[in-house]
């Protein structure tokens, strides 16, 4: 039988996991209607925040802002005009594994993300499947994103079999603020699935370096 203090600790861990799920899901809903610029308020104020995307990695807030490649397809709250032409992004989050540290100061989570991106007016659309890995901090009474990496799985046009089409190499597009790039998985008939994209987190007491989305 737990003491009341132990029960309260259990409650805090449960609540933390639910708040983190809600935070990530809310981002997906906002991105769905191109309000992803609201994403920035989800991030920690620390300058070692790390955002790792297939098209490059950034550290800090200034470069985080530059790291959004859909900079030109972002909705201003006062102006819905730039969403003309039936533009839409869908990035869902399934298969959660969320581990909150026993000390309630950090958390780690991974998700699968079946998705879609398209602009109907340009007859453009692709299935866009990827995976997310996150580290979170409890900061000023709220959970905030500390680090995030996207692992691409595939992006294919409607009549292109994802088993036959490898994702484009996004590192070829130079973007402001990119510091470095990491290799990422691209399916092929001779390719073996990567070991750690991502590594599902295990229960842990206190944060120590080394998980890093399992790519160390």
């Amino acid at each position, binding site marked *: *039988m737990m003491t009341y203090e132990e*029960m309260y600790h259990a409650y805090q861990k*449960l609540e933390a996991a639910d708040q983190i799920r809600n935070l990530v899901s809310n981002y997906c809903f906002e991105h769905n209607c191109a309000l992803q610029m609201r994403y920035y308020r989800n991030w920690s104020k620390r300058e070692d925040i790390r955002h790792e995307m297939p098209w490059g990695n950034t550290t800090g807030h200034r470069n985080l802002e530059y790291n959004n490649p859909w900079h030109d397809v972002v909705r201003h709250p006062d102006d819905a005009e730039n969403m003309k032409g039936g533009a839409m992004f869908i990035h869902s989050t399934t*298969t*959660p*594994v969320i581990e909150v540290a026993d000390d309630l100061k950090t958390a780690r989570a991974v998700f699968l993300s079946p998705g879609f991106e398209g602009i109907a007016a340009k007859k453009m659309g692709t299935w866009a499947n990827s995976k997310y890995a996150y580290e979170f901090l409890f900061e000023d009474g709220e959970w905030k994103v500390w680090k995030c990496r996207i692992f691409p799985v595939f992006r294919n046009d409607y009549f292109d079999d994802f*088993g*036959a089409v490898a994702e484009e190499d996004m590192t070829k597009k130079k973007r402001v603020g990119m510091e470095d790039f990491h290799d990422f998985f691209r399916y092929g008939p001779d390719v*073996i699935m990567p070991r750690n994209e991502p590594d599902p987190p295990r229960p842990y007491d206190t944060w120590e370096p080394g998980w890093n989305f399992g790519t160390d």
Partner: protein
Amino acid sequence: MNMQDNNAYDKPAEGAAPGERFNHIENPKRTQEEMSLEFERLTAAKICENLAGSFSYLFSANRMQEVSDLFAHTDTDRITMPYGVYKGADAADRCFLRDMVDIDDPDPARHEELKGRMIIPDMCTPIVEVAGDGKTAKGLWNSPGLEAHSKDGAGQGWWNWSKFAMDFILTEQGWKIWHFSRYLYFSTEYLKSWAKSPKHIFAPARLTIDEPAPEQYYYTPDAVYPDEEPAIPAPYDTWTE
């Protein structure tokens, strides 16, 4: 914590120290033991969700030893795949390590089987019911998954929609997967709908199953979807099956 300290029912406001509660505060409806059990059950449900999710990531990465470690390894373990049934304490080892192939398998010929194999089982629509006694749990997930395999040097994809039903048991090593079943809705070639695609059930090259798979629903234009394949987990007190 002494419950009596919170029941300052008879304490007048004037005698209260700053910040001290002096109003009547009710006792909880549940005893400490009952509350403790409920918190354990809620925590168990989260752990089971994490187990199901971890299964997905580890299975996709062919980390089959770690997949096997998620299982309880009891004599009553059972794994039902669409291609066959494994039973007993070594069910997970046979299904995942011996048959599916582990990423660290030292045999290069076996390792070859992993090339071009991409199996991603998403876990959606989670239902996790933990028994009233906190010792077992039942879970069910919808899975809009996918597969790709190489054939004659080229890759072929399938949309692979299924359900995962897992029972879990609390062991001395913590919560583990106990019974595991996969039920296909369909497995359709990428360029063909599920009404037009030939039936496809992936099975590894080596099979050490104990029984053939039971008759299960698979989409055809004539099939009527069954009521309980499997039964949807409902609240229960203690494992009786």
